[in-house]
Structure formats: structure tokens, C-alpha cells
């Protein structure tokens, strides 16, 4: 098997099915190179979360091989080493936070990496500052709003200074303001990223490559399709553009054809 020094994650012929359930990942191949910003798009239930749980070693596939940072993942020990450099953001932030206060929770990762309490607290404060939520330090995790929990969960992951970020539906349930904030944070990072979402607008602004996931496999063909979106609203007959569409046509997303406006354009 050819190995690429730049290849961070490689999955070959990975198959997984939940006990008593249908096959979710079916001889799946997936490869992530350093610096890549990959979006995985697919409907609910197509296996995006399962794929990420397999990459992080939370569940084991029935067959196939997983290589992370050039090391074959065979047991929990291998995954523990990989997790030191791969940060995973759960779809539901409620599942990610479990310490009483925000500072304790964000410091949890650095403490596990062997940091002294003072060092871990500093790393936590640095991560909170990077996300602009330093004032959350003494708040109770359990009482935060959904959007606030998402940002704290991300801080908890960033505090470990990972080399690759794996984000599972990061915008799920977020209001427009928090979504925008998250978008700005992610666009400002230089990490290798894998983002699963079914929100195309978000993916096109945060990632540079999009793969579709269906039938337990990832389609890595990078085929580009010209398409248009049809919509209707009052005043459609007059010449007009849409503000959201202008955002989508920003430099980040300009590498591929995007939706065209309807109506009079």
C-alpha cells in the first residue's frame, strides 16, 4: 500500500453496521491530506457521524483498515495517540461538556495531555480568548444556551491544539448570530478540517472540497455540477439579487459554480 507523508487520515474498505441494524459504512475509502478542508455532505442517517466515530476509535469497524498520522490503528492505545492530535466536535454539545464550570471543562483536554493544572488553565483561557468567550470562564456549563455550549465545546477541542479538526454538523440548532460567529472562527483557522453538514452554504464558506456521502461510501470524484435554484417570492419579476447569495459568491466559495438567483437576473 502506497503511503503519502502528507496523508493524515486514510480509511480503506471500512465496513460498519450497528448491532442488529443495516450496514452504515460499506467498504468505504477515504483519504485526508494535511491542509485539506473537506466538507462531507449527505442527508440525515447517511453515516457521517458513524464515519467520524470510527475515525476517532469510539466504535470499531467489522473490517477495513484505518491509518491516522501514518500509524495503523489496531487497538485503543493507537487511537489514544491519534486523539492527542485530532480534535472532534460532537454534533450535540450537550454530549461533549461534563465539567461543572466552563474553565474546568476547557482545561480537561490539556490536563489529560499531561499539563499541570496551571498550564491547563492557561491553555483553557487562551482557547476561550481565541473564540471571544473569555467572559464564560466561571459560568456553569449545564446552564449555557445551545449556541454558547457549542462555542465552549469548540474551545475545549482547540485548547488541546489539535492538528486536524473533525466537526460533526457544527451548525445544527444554532441561531443565525452564533452560526455567523462559528463561520468566522472556522474561516480564520488554518487547521486541516473535515466538516460534515447538510448545510451547503456553510460548507462552501468553510471548506474547499466537497464530497458526497451515500450508500455507505464517500464519493471522492470532485465532480462539479452546474445547477440553478428556482424560488419564488413577491416582486420576483423585477431585477434583483439576494444578499445571502452575495455572501456565497465570496472569494472562499468562488472556486466552483454556485446557485444562481431566480427572477429577473
Amino acid at each position, binding site marked *: 500500500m502506497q503511503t503519502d507523508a502528507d496523508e493524515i487520515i486514510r480509511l480503506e474498505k471500512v465496513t460498519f453496521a450497528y448491532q442488529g441494524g443495516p450496514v452504515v459504512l460499506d467498504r468505504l475509502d477515504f483519504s485526508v491530506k494535511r491542509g485539506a478542508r473537506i466538507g462531507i455532505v449527505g442527508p440525515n442517517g447517511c453515516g457521517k457521524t458513524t464515519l467520524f466515530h470510527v475515525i476517532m476509535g469510539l466504535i470499531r469497524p467489522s473490517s477495513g483498515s484505518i491509518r491516522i498520522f501514518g500509524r495503523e490503528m489496531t487497538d485503543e492505545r493507537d487511537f489514544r495517540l491519534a486523539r492527542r492530535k485530532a480534535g472532534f466536535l460532537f454534533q450535540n454539545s450537550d454530549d*461533549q461538556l461534563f465539567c461543572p464550570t466552563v474553565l474546568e471543562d476547557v482545561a480537561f483536554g490539556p*490536563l489529560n495531555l499531561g499539563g499541570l493544572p496551571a498550564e491547563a488553565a492557561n491553555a483553557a483561557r487562551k482557547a476561550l480568548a481565541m473564540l471571544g468567550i473569555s467572559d464564560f470562564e466561571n459560568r456553569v456549563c449545564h446552564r449555557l444556551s445551545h449556541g454558547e455550549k457549542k462555542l465552549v465545546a469548540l474551545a475545549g477541542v482547540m485548547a488541546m491544539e489539535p492538528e486536524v479538526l473533525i466537526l460533526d454538523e457544527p451548525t445544527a440548532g444554532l441561531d443565525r448570530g452564533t452560526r455567523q460567529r462559528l463561520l468566522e472562527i472556522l474561516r480564520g483557522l488554518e487547521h486541516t478540517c473535515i466538516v460534515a453538514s447538510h448545510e451547503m452554504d456553510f460548507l462552501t464558506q468553510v471548506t474547499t472540497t466537497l464530497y458526497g456521502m451515500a450508500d455507505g461510501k464517500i464519493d471522492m470524484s470532485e465532480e462539479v455540477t452546474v445547477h440553478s435554484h428556482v424560488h419564488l417570492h413577491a416582486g420576483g419579476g423585477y431585477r434583483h439579487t439576494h444578499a445571502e447569495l452575495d455572501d456565497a459568491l465570496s472569494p472562499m466559495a468562488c472556486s466552483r459554480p454556485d446557485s444562481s438567483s431566480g427572477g429577473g437576473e
Partner: protein
Amino acid sequence: MGVELPVSPRAPLSALDVRIRLICVILFSLVAATLQTPGALGAATAFSLALVAAARVPVKHLLQRLMVVNMFIAFLWFFLPWSMPGEELFRLGPVQVSGAGVGYALAITVRSNILVLAIIAFMSTASITSITRAMGLLRVPDKITYLFFFTYRYIGEISSERTRLVNAMRVRCFVPTTSLHTYRSYACLVGMLLVKSFDRARRVRMAMLLRGFDGRFPCLDAGRISKLDLISLGVLCLILLGVLYADRC
């Protein structure tokens, strides 16, 4: 370890109505708990093993559950053999182990295992909703049904929540050691489990109240008791009477 065993739809015992199975379990339990003689206990053990075979319970799951029961019974073996007065069997230093004590501990062990085997055999092939429905139809007080159903529901929920929290810890490189950080982390885990479970219970209760729940469990389908059910119940009663007779003679 899951809460429900994998159900085998083709197992012979699955064909019986759940109400009949509940009645069988109750009758079997009442009889098995009173058995004293080795012969009767042996016959009851053979019968319960036959029931487990008829229910086609997977051996691995059966052994896991028996292990949990026997862990509790093991405690009794620490106390009964020398705390009961009786003819000395042997000495362990200053401690006198009596035959009566060993016999009593053994009888408890066998009876407990017989009971658990029978309960697993009869009830593991019934879903929780059908058991709750059967309890309602048998006029079991609603409060008991309520407690039973929610205990089951929340054991499953708490188990899922625990898995999610443990995954959250694993993903951030938590490795248990004998350190204050580990103890603190586990304390947070337990605390969070309680807080989240309580919150979820409150939300579920609100959802139920909003749909008119008043403590009762009405059934959609009453089910039918067939001739097979009545014959099976009759056969079980005869077997139990026979075992009781053998025990008393």
C-alpha cells in the same frame, strides 16, 4: 450490556400471551421460593433449564445476567456457613462451618438461580410495552406498573447517557489513573449523569402531561388468550403441583 435481550420470534414460549406468561412467572416464583428438598430443587432446576431452552435465550446473555445475580448470592456464602448453628462440617481455624449453614446457602443459591432462569425464559421474549400492557390488563395497580416501566426506561437512558459522557472523555484523551484528576473526572461524570437524567425525566413528564397522562396506561390492543395459553398454564400448574408434592413428602 443491553437492557433487552435479543428477542427470538420463533421461540416456542414467544407464542404464549404475555398475561399468561406473567401468571406463570408468579406461580413458579411462589412455588420455587418454598422448595426445601434436594429432589424437588433438582426437578425445578431441570424444568427451568428446559424453559430457557424453549425460549431460545442466547447463552452469553444468560450467563451475564446469572453472574449479576450470583454476585449478590456470593455475599451470603461469606456469612451463612458459620453463622448458622448445626452439626459441624469442618473447621477453618477458629471458625466452625456447619452443615446446616452450607445447606441453607446452597438452597438459596439454587432457588435464586431457578427463579432468575424462569423469569428470563418467560419474560425475555416479551417487549417492555407488552409487559406493561399485560400488567394493566391483569389489573396490577397503576403505580407499580408506572414504577416498573420508568425504571426500565431510565436504566436504558442512563446507560446511553453514560456511554456518551465516557466517549466525550475518551475523545479528549482521558486515561484513568490513580490520580486526583481521574477521581475528579469520574465525580463529574456521575454528577452530570444525575443532573442530565433528572432534567430528561422532567422533560418526558412534561411531554406526557401535555398529552393528557393521568397515571394510567390504556391499551390499544387487549390481545387474545388462546387454547394454547390455557393448556400451557394448566400443564405448568400440574408440574408445579407435582414438584410441591415431591417436596412435601
